[in-house]
């Protein structure tokens, strides 16, 4: 880090992620599950299915449907959050659903529903990205046919500087926040949002940073899955 750059509040370098740990298969009753700790975020994702669709009129005859619920626990924030599903949660549920949908081979499961439940136990900034990482790990854990895993990471602009992985304080004081999700093996982007303003150069840099962050998270997702299934062997690709 060069001297003229302003230090971040958390003391991280501009291209440094928060501490992340992912664990797969944490819930016995779900078909697939994952717990992610992303800085102060603690997020649990559980996947059920494929199973019968209820209500029946939502059934699609040639493919599966995906139901996604993103929900924050009342104790997840510093002031109590009302437990009802809020407008923001409905939006994030939709965004997460659309981010993981391209990875799932839905034609393999006609007339079924795949349910993704995401509970935020403790929230910090960037919970939607963390939730996508957890959800995709849980989907793979549930044994659902997928083209690829989905990895998400945010980049942003704080105090005029483009940084990776914007946390809660930085999000509130900063100028821009740009969460992206992508399929790491093909590089296809499945989620793209941008709050705030970025110039062309800043945007290019932020996108590049976010992709680097996604690469790191992809490795952690693989580690989590190989820990459960292969006793930690062959977690990361040799080639």
């Amino acid at each position, binding site marked *: 880090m060069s001297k003229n750059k302003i230090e971040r509040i958390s003391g991280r370098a501009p291209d440094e992620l928060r501490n992340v740990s992912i664990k797969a298969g944490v819930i016995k009753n779900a078909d697939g599950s994952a717990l992610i700790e992303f800085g102060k975020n603690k997020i649990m994702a559980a996947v059920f*299915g494929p199973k019968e669709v209820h209500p029946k009129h939502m059934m699609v005859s040639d493919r599966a449907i995906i139901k996604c619920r993103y929900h924050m626990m009342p104790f997840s924030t510093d002031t109590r959050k009302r437990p009802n599903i809020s407008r923001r949660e409905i939006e994030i549920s939709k965004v997460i659903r659309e981010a993981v949908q391209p990875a799932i081979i839905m034609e393999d499961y006609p007339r079924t529903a795949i349910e993704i439940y995401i509970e935020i136990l403790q929230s910090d900034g960037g919970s939607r990205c963390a939730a996508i990482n957890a959800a995709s790990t849980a989907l793979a854990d*549930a044994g659902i046919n997928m083209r690829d895993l989905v990895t998400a990471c945010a980049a942003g602009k704080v105090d005029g500087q483009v940084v990776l992985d914007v946390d809660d304080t930085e999000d509130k004081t900063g100028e821009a926040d740009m969460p992206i999700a992508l399929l790491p093996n093909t590089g296809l982007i499945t989620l793209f949002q941008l709050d705030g303003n970025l110039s062309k150069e800043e945007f290019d840099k932020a996108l590049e940073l976010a992709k680097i962050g996604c690469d790191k998270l992809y490795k952690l997702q*693989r580690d989590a899955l190989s820990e459960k299934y292969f006793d930690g062997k062959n977690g990361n690709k040799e080639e």
Partner: protein
Amino acid sequence: MKTNSVERKYVMPGDVVIEGDHNPLANVIKSGNKIISTKIGMAEISYNGVRVIPLNGTYIPRIDDVVIGKVADMNGFAWEIDINSWFFGILTGSAVFGRQFSSSRDSMKSQFNKGECLIAKILSFDRTRDPLISVSGPGLGKINEGEITYITSSKIPRVIGKKGAMIKLIEENTGCRMTIGQNGAILLKGTDEARTKARNAVKLIGNQAHISDLNDKVISLISK
């Protein structure tokens, strides 16, 4: 390059199993020149093509599979059987009583009641309709004794082993009779001790299906 030998490696969704002209067999998709895995499991590259043996996932019914199920619901015409998949298996009255089946004359309860277990065969399934099952055939029908243990359906081939080697090994060493349902349900018959031993062996296979020296581990577990 096509060879006669079988190569194995661990894969996850999105991993390129192999590049080149290969035949995608199961749990893989072809994208351009690449064969990509869609599940967590062991990839097998052989002369016939590429397949991934999954380590998890729900049972997908296939025609002629023998399954072990439980009566979940019944009405005047058919039983709904929980076969450990995402749809119930449908056992129609005429499949049990024959062509002359009449819902007013024949009592459904005289054959199968709610909660009873049975061994059945998948008659038809094409993913657009619920699987139809049948209990007519040797070895099929109501289960009167024994216990059922469950394992991930993709690991059933490991329980059976090469030409039935593993199942033979467990049966001979424990004295427990096993009937295997392709849906991941295994019926164990025998003394308490025999069943406990067999159950533990099945559990071991479930936990360590990806390990190559499974036979030795099962033997050492049983002979303890």
